[in-house]
């Protein structure tokens, strides 16, 4: 571990290093990352609440919920890396930290290259703007230049089968069309690292196949993918390595097949315990 700490491009505790950095073989390095959320006993979200609380002699009290504890792993360049675990184990928190949305309380995160988070489709889309304007908006969110976006515009519209509707306002789109446009735009942003949070099951069957094909294509092109899913079969098939998180801690890390097996054991264990309690 000591050698890890001297990796180039890693900054101070609790900070996220985004952008193109040379991490050698690794694309993502996560070291001892912890994240705690404060859950206040009494939610105070106005000046009025604070003043009133003080006047009554109340104190600001909250419970600390530990979402991630000392999580350490790294993802190699070009690897498809799975993240599995039961609901509420901290998978989404981890993904948000990788995306740079949440800041860890302790630990280091270093990422080499541009990250495209697929935490939700259609992030930033504006209903009052047309399809083309939204494509430009999303491209800008991903930090693309105007010329890069214009170059990809036709590809995106074609991939989403929405060429005819390019000048229609987004608010008039059906939800299926919306999702198609969102996926196509996100995938064409040409990121180095994809963070995927179970959003691949979108659109009709034909479009799903197209998406799966596109993901496979990206994988072959040597991009790094971090894939969070409950679909254990697809994790086993897609990912080379995998991490199992339970209650915020890394329980297992290694070959996807072995970790998926371990997860199945964990589920059985939990179920049998539940049954005992019932009896």
């Amino acid at each position, binding site marked *: 571990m000591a050698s890890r700490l001297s990796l180039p491009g890693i900054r101070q505790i609790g900070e996220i290093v985004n952008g193109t950095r040379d991490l050698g073989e690794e694309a993502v390095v996560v070291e001892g990352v912890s994240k705690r*959320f404060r859950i206040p006993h009494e939610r105070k*979200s106005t*000046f009025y609440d604070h003043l009133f609380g003080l006047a009554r002699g109340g104190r600001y009290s909250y419970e600390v919920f530990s979402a991630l504890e000392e999580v350490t792993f790294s993802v190699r360049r070009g690897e498809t890396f799975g993240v599995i675990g039961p609901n509420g184990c901290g998978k989404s928190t981890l993904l948000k930290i990788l995306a*740079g949305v949440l800041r860890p309380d302790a630990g280091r995160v270093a990422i080499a290259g541009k990250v495209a988070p697929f*935490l939700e489709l259609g*992030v930033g889309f504006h209903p009052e703007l047309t399809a083309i304007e939204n494509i430009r908006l999303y491209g*800008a*969110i991903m930090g693309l230049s105007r010329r890069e976006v214009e170059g990809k515009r036709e590809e995106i519209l074609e991939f989403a089968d929405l060429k005819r509707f390019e000048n229609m306002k987004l608010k008039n789109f059906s939800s299926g069309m919306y999702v198609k446009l969102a996926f196509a735009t996100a995938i064409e942003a040409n990121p180095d690292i994809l963070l995927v949070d179970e959003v691949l099951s979108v659109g009709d069957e034909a479009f799903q196949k197209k998406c799966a094909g596109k993901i496979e294509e990206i994988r072959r092109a040597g991009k790094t993918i971090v894939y969070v899913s409950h679909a254990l079969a697809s994790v086993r098939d897609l990912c080379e390595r995998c991490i199992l998180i339970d209650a915020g801690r890394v329980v297992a890390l290694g070959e996807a097949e072995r970790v998926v097996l371990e997860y199945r054991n964990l589920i059985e264990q939990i179920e049998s315990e539940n049954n005992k309690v019932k009896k």
Partner: protein
Amino acid sequence: MWIVEYRELIRILTVSDLKVKYQSSVLGFLWSLLNPLLMMLVLYLVFSNVFKFEDDSFALYLLIGIVAWRFLANGTMTSISAIVGRPSLVTKVYVPRQVLVLSTVLSSFTSSILEFSVLIPLLIFFGVDLSANVLFFPLIHLAFLGLVYGMSLVLSALYVYYRDLNQIWDVLLQAGFFLSPIVYPAEIVPDKYLAAYMLNPVTVTIEMYREALLYATAPSAADLAFVAAAAGAALLVGGAVFGRLEGRFAEEI
């Protein structure tokens, strides 16, 4: 630097904000002009008998004050919810959060420039001699932009944690409206308060707008330096407060 890297996003967010504001129509823009003009008319009818002006420039005096004030009021009032109003850009994807504040302020800034440029023909129409001192306008307006942006950074960051801040700010703005020389000439302020009164950078800014546009005089270097320093301080403080509070934005929204 995030401004350079995300300039395309800043541009698009600013333009789309303006588009929504003006409903993509010329008429939308005309409506937005009607507001300051009507306000000027009302205040003129009320106050023109209170303060004796030598010539009949009180209407224009008012209008410049109102248009200048509108940038501060609209700029801060819309950008106070710049972070809270775009939750998906804060919680689902990483963009530097200052981008959101800057683009709303720039949208108000553009509106303000449009309002000022409608003002110029009015000035000419009412027989004001425009001198080369009009060229000071961009300088003054840029300093004012720095001031408004710095304030907006603080407000938008605090608003994430204190959701009644917009109500409080609304009241403070109303107080500020009457604490600045908009409806009355600064000369009526008693001498003993004048030093303190002129410490308000907004007051100095409004006076400079009038010097450049209405009185055909150049603003003094001291005034310009004072407002520029105030803008610089606002940017520094705003950046520091925003940076401190930014860490937990995604959790609090």
